[in-house]
């Protein structure tokens, strides 16, 4: 990867880094941090789903592992939050490697892979809800102690910059993957696995690398979530909502592109906020909009939009 490959990402990072200088409203920064955390989770999904074509419906398994690992090590063993954050990424990546090994070795693809990842996430959710180690149904509260050494900050601006830095890192990583041999092999597996294998691509190894990286990135999002909201429970960490968020953003913004998840997450959350301010806080209404947008995007893929408009124009 050269500077020429990286400059759009760096430019995005620089512009976004200016936000706290202009915006001091807590709610807006809060919104920006939450959206960026979801960008990160979605970028994780994008590596496996977008570039690798393996649609996971259970990225909550990785998000939750990152979140719980960060929380449990801090609360129960008093480990430094920065260390627990990294440990969460490592553990999420390991969980990804194991789930990937089991499912890809059995040759699960397409709908079957979606189903098995969904089931794994549900198993984690039921377990986390039942065993006392995770705080059970009551959840896990990380004690408030706002000092930078604790990965907690008095004002939101600093946390925003850290989350942004991690998102930029994930974007650079994705860009590097795109330019690498592994990335090319991954896309080859997505387009035609048999053909890729016939050309000597070790499909299992490539997919395993993708799911490990993917799970690690989504796990980082989970760790950030726990650290920002200082609370984790089984429906937040392992709930279907995060699996859906992680999948929707890249699909809507453009799966298998560097900026797709960022665009998708921003579009979705702006839409949700706009709806809330229009019709009030009716529970579930934002997700109704998400669902409709998802169906419309599949029905009228944005890539085909220019062609569709031209066809109408000529008529």
């Amino acid at each position, binding site marked *: 990867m050269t500077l020429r490959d990286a400059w759009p990402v760096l430019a995005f990072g620089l512009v976004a880094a200016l936000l706290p200088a202009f915006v001091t409203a807590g709610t807006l920064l809060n919104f920006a941090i939450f959206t960026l955390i979801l960008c990160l989770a979605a970028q994780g999904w994008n590596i496996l789903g977008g570039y690798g074509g393996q649609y996971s419906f259970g990225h909550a398994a990785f998000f939750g592992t990152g979140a719980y690992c960060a929380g449990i090590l801090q609360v129960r063993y008093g480990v430094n939050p920065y260390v627990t954050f990294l440990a969460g990424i490592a553990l999420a990546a390991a969980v990804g490697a194991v789930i990937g090994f089991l499912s890809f070795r059995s040759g699960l693809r397409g709908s079957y892979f979606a189903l098995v990842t969904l089931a*794994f996430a549900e198993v984690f959710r039921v377990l986390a809800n039942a065993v006392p180690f995770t705080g059970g149904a009551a959840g896990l509260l990380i004690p408030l102690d706002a000092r930078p050494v604790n990965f907690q900050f008095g004002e939101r601006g600093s946390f925003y910059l850290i989350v942004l830095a991690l998102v930029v890192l994930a974007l650079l990583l994705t860009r590097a993957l795109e330019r690498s041999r592994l990335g090319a092999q991954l896309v080859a597996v997505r387009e035609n696995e048999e053909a890729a294998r016939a050309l000597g691509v070790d499909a299992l190894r490539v997919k395993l690398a993708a799911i490990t990286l993917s799970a690690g990135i989504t796990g980082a999002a989970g760790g950030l979530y726990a650290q920002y909201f200082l609370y984790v429970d089984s429906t937040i960490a392992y709930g279907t909502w995060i699996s859906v968020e992680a999948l929707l953003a890249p699909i809507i913004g453009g799966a298998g592109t560097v900026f797709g998840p960022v665009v998708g997450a921003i579009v979705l959350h702006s839409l949700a906020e706009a709806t809330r301010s229009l019709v009030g806080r009716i529970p579930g209404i934002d997700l109704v909009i998400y669902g409709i947008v998802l169906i419309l995007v599949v029905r009228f893929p944005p890539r085909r939009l220019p062609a569709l408009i031209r066809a109408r124009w000529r008529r």
Partner: protein
Amino acid sequence: MNSFPPEIVLEAVANGLLTGAVYGLVALGLTLVYGVLHIINFAHGALLTLAMYAAWVAWAAFGLDPYVAIIPLVPIFFAAGYAVQRLVIGPASRGDDQNILLVTLGLSIVLENAMLAIFRSDTLSVQVDYAMEVVEAPLFFSAPMLLSFPRLVGFGVAFLVAGVLFVLLTMTDTGRAIRAVAKERTGAALSGIDVAHIYAVTFGIGTACLAVAACLLLPSFYVNPRVGNAFVLVAFTIVVMGGMGSVPGALLGGLVIGVVESLSGLYLGDSLGQLGIFVIFILVLLFRPTGLFGARA
């Protein structure tokens, strides 16, 4: 692990079989849609929730007994299923596997959250005087075991519906067309079968099965916007276990899962009891994705 006297275990097995038949009915709709359209319908659970709300509204607003509500709800849900496949899923997916996954996922998100917006997250149930009634089944070695009346009705009706479906699929022209499309879509189209119509009819039948299941569940169960999720993973488990697309496999799988759930609830407690199903699901997917009963994918 606790040990229980045999009559308790036997009662758990019997209750599991009764619940399992309704699971089987839910799975029947799913497997039929899979067998013919070759799609995994993620909206199945949300459609079940919708049917349960419809049955609840029929009871709350019109005073209709859930068992009577089957009569109006089946045609309504058949029509709804037909329309959803014809107007939403079919055009949006353009036959692509991943598009179908996404469209049905989108549909389930819309339905589930629209119900959350309308009914809020409160748990609703119907009050009918037979809900708590039990039937005594004699056992020769101990006191008779008690079986819940609504579950017994559910068991009977589920098998009745399966029988009707069997007759429909084997003895009518539409049934023959459905089986033809399931076996060989292009060939069926070439011999003059309207494939898009048959797809929609199949989807409609699958949705109508849900309407029946919803009416059977309501007297002894509750409804909230997420209730379908609990059933849909169970239904997926059953469908995968029974062999994707296999109708008898779905019924048999339903009974097995009902018993597994009931026994793991007995031995592991309610919160961990669900785990048994997911573990079976993962194991079957990993090691026998073509189904336990030898059906070929």
